């Protein structure tokens, strides 16, 4: 119950930040990626603001035995650079560049342009499910 409220609060803050930062407008995101054309640096300020706050949060973590509302930390520990990581990130970047949407803004935009955002989100979930099927078939 308590973790659900924290998750909802985090998602709401996150969605508000995306909208305020202009990230729910694909034209602005593609404008950031268009460094050889009419470059719009706004996304760099969004990323910069978020990274600065999070860098401070990471400095607090080592001083905490447990999180404030959970029993333990669950943080990624891998450090290996694999072809799958790089190939996946490359594919993601191509999709990001094509429509100017990544997962967060795509989901947040469901209230801004419901039809368009729903197509993107459903296709994204289908892609995620497809990867699961292929990986499931291999193992």
């Amino acid at each position: 119950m308590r973790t659900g409220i924290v998750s909802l609060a985090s998602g709401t803050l996150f969605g508000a930040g995306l909208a305020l930062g202009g990230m729910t407008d694909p034209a602005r995101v593609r404008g950031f990626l268009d460094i050889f054309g009419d470059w719009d640096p706004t996304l760099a300020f969004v990323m910069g603001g978020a990274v600065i706050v999070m860098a401070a949060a990471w400095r607090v973590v080592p001083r905490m035995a447990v999180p404030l509302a959970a029993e333990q930390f669950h943080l990624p520990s891998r450090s290996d650079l694999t072809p799958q990581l790089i190939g996946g990130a490359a594919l993601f970047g191509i999709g990001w560049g094509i429509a100017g949407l990544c997962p967060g803004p795509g989901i947040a935009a469901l209230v801004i342009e419901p039809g368009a955002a729903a197509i993107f989100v459903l296709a994204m979930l289908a892609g995620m499910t497809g990867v699961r099927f292929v990986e499931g078939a291999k193992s």
Partner: protein
Amino acid sequence: MTLSGFPDAAPLSGLMGGVLIGLAAALMLLALGRIAGVSGLAAKAIGLGGSGIARSDAWMFVIGLPFGALVVMLASGGFQANFASPLTLAIAGLLVGIGTRLGSGCTSGHGVCGVSRLSARSIVATATFMVTGIATVAVMNSFGLEVL
């Protein structure tokens, strides 16, 4: 506030939006001990991904995203947004879905949470998707492909 040389840029609202995103991710980290990665949480919500956060909590985070955007939209009296055609959105969505699962994250998990932690995997992933995103827009522009 405007940025000289970039008439379309919105640096101040961008920075404020970024700080909100950072606070959201910090809340997830310090209160629940987890990474606020949207692609991972969305996958968890629909039942993909083994261990990790409770599925109901993943849903709460995902539902919060449009809710937060709605609050800003109502407070600001609506805002501009241009979206691609349905076919373009479907192709892009598929690539984003496949890529984020294979690459273990997106702009939030790698770009914000991982880069700020100086994770090598996240820095490499972020550099990679930045480069391919920039290349994709450049190639599309050079062929005169306008999607928005």
